[in-house]
């Protein structure tokens, strides 16, 4: 047996080879998306964005058909004609006080053959109020994302590219609050996500679809206000807007606020009030000195900052962190303004719990907004009402010619903020615009908002440019929006019958009627969205 001293040399050689190979193992992976260093508003933060899902037209139809609600939605939207790729956009924007913040949203890209790819129009969509801080409208895999499903089926699956923000304060945004009904911030954020989405689209897996340059703006409820504010801002900036269709939005905010503080409390007010107070306090610092100025001691510790929340709002109600219905104290205040006996008496009467008038079903809803414990203090309510009474809005309580805003800027903080964000600012659409809603809406009152805008614009806008659609009205024609009105009324009747079946809860007629009313605002949404799509289709054909 020989033992070569050279063997140690070979071992050393082998070690060197091994070491070299190990170093080679440090080779990197294929890259992922680029993260932008810029935080300027409108910057796409992650390029290309994540595609959460890609569904063919048939797969989307199949997914929707698998649930009763999805199948009902398909009856309204029609069968998908395009596949849809769902992208999760992250972008930079600004908060209500110009804070730099990252926000997120959806880019839904139609895919497929003719009419689904190539140059396609964009629908810029603003969603309705959502208490869920984790909301991601791009996440089509989330079964609670009903508004995401609606806009996918209604617009993207019919050939429109859809761009929709989650809004600052939601999802990944670390802003810490949501700039609710802040026209400047929300319109800015809409334009920012539009810029980011247009940057993203060519680099996505769906680059066979491109932006045609046609832009349609729409949104529902809170998003109706956002859509109108965005239309106003983009037109002011001379950006291209092809048409707009704000839906069921609180456009005439000062008038709407006055109606509520006078006692016409809407369904959802105990969700909206904390969001509004938190938003305007951050933006304007004039709503309160301390939360107890606005909120009763029962809720003051948490109400100002808890929405949106990752805790379901029903849990907040159950745990007593928010009242479900009682916006105001059922022991209504006696107003005593020194030297203002008549005004004091008038306001005391005005602030009483509304009398239920059987001829006006909404009065029963208004009365539900009073109770104890309650959210907003009587003192704060009085301060608002005094301002409203001494410097009245042109639409509430008594409409005056032109339904203008208060003659001079309000002095009460919250009312001033509503005045600031009201859409009656001397502006009127210069592109085709449809305002859609339902006249019995108990959440965002139709006449106070849509009706007021119609009256306000009546002398400002070119004839025929603005259309108003009340889907709750009995149709007078089988043409135009008549079939949509008919379908909505049929759906309401079907819903009333359904609630009385065992599958629907076996409710009494009265309870079923109340359930229909309670869900009215939500149920209008798909029909107004269908009207918006039909309107956009018509504008496209004529352009």
């Amino acid at each position, binding site marked *: *047996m*020989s*033992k*070569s001293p*050279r*063997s140690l040399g*070979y*071992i050393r050689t*082998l070690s060197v080879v*091994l070491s070299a*190979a*190990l170093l*080679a*193992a*440090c*080779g*990197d*992976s*294929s*890259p*992922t*998306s680029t*993260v932008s260093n810029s935080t300027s508003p409108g910057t796409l933060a*992650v390029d*290309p*964005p*994540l*595609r*959460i*899902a*890609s*569904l*063919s037209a048939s*797969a989307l139809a199949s997914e929707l058909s698998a649930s009763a609600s999805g199948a009902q939605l398909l009856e309204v939207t029609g069968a998908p004609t395009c*596949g849809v790729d769902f992208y*999760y956009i*992250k972008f930079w924007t600004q908060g209500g006080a110009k804070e730099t913040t990252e926000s997120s949203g959806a880019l839904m890209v139609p895919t497929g053959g003719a009419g689904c790819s190539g140059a396609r129009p964009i629908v810029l969509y603003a969603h309705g109020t959502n208490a869920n801080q984790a909301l991601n409208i791009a*996440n089509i*895999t989330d079964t609670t994302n009903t508004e995401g499903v609606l806009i996918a089926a209604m617009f993207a699956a019919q050939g429109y590219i859809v761009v929709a923000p989650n809004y600052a304060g939601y999802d990944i945004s670390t802003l810490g609050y949501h700039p609710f009904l802040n026209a400047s911030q929300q319109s800015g954020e809409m334009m920012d996500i539009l810029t980011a989405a247009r940057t993203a689209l060519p680099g*996505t*897996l769906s680059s066979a679809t491109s932006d045609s340059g046609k832009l349609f703006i729409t949104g529902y409820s809170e998003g109706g206000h956002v859509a109108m504010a965005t239309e106003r801002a983009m037109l002011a900036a001379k950006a291209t807007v092809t048409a707009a269709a704000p839906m069921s939005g609180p456009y005439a905010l000062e008038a709407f606020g006055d109606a509520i503080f006078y006692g016409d409390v809407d369904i959802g007010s105990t969700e909206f009030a904390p969001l509004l107070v938190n938003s305007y306090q951050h933006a304007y610092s004039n709503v309160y000195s301390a939360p107890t100025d606005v909120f009763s001691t029962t809720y003051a510790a948490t109400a100002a900052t808890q929405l949106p929340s990752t805790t379901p709002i029903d849990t907040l109600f159950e745990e007593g962190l928010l009242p479900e219905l009682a916006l105001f104290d059922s022991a209504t205040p006696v107003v005593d303004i020194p030297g203002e006996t008549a005004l004091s008496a008038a306001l005391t009467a005005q602030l009483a719990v509304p009398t239920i008038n059987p001829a006006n079903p909404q009065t029963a809803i208004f009365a539900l907004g009073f109770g104890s414990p309650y959210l907003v203090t009587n003192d704060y309510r009085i301060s608002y009402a005094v301002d409203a009474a001494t410097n009245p809005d042109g639409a509430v309580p008594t409409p005056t010619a032109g339904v203008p805003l208060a003659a001079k800027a309000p002095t009460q903080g919250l009312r001033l903020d509503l005045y600031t964000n009201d859409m009656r600012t001397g502006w009127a659409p210069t592109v085709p615009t449809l305002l859609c809603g339902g006249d019995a809406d108990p959440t965002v009152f139709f006449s106070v908002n849509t009706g007021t805008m119609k009256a306000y614009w009546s002398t400002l806008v070119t004839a025929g440019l603005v259309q108003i659609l009340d889907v709750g009205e009995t149709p007078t024609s089988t043409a135009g929006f008549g079939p949509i009105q008919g379908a909505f009324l049929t759906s309401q009747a079907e819903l009333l019958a359904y609630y009385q079946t065992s599958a629907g809860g076996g409710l009494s007629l009265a309870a079923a009627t109340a359930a229909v009313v309670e869900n009215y605002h939500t149920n209008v949404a798909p029909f107004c969205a269908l009207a918006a799509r039909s309107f956009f289709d018509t504008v496209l054909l004529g352009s």
Partner: protein
Amino acid sequence: MKTTIRALTAATALVALFQALPAAADDSDPVYNNDFRVGLYSVFYHTSGDDLQGPYVPAGVNFKADNLETLYVGYVRSLPANLQVEVALGYPPLSKVEGKGLATVGSVPYNGQVVSSARWLSPTVLLEYVFLSPDSKLRPFIGAGVNYTSFYDRNQTAAGDAATGGPTKVSLSSSVGPAGTVGATYKFTSHWHLNMSYSITRVNSHVELDTAGVLRTTEIKFGPQALVVSGGYSF
């Protein structure tokens, strides 16, 4: 099956080569303690792993590795008492990973699609017991040791990008695991010999996919088994 046939073909070719060499081994042959081996590494994966976990991932997204062949290089050092140490190394192969599970992710084809690839550096150190005397022509051996596996050149394919939703950074943690082998050496001359072995190695890796900052993870047990046919030179 195709891989096995190739391995056997290679073995036959090596036997023919060594038979052509002069000077068959006999009792008077010297015994050398160092040995370099070169041959064919046929790797058969028995992949198992958890379904991919993370945001927006439907249930049932899994992976499997494609079998492969690569160059085997080994160094064996004889020790007293019929023991030897083998350092086994393969030329880092390009291993392809296929989607397994769902036929489609959304509407994107998945099952059976090559979704990613990576090269492996996978040295193994084995302590082996060799049966029979050093003079024997045929000497079976059995061994156990440690494998270290590191992955590099990790790339996701276009099909993988489509499934995960965009360009993706693939990370696989390095693995240290036990390895076992059985085999035999057939000596043609005092210098030249033919080796065949079958080995089983535990290679487990934590896999992380980063798509646009969204992380998805799984644990994969690659379970490689390898048939090695090699020619060796002792010195």
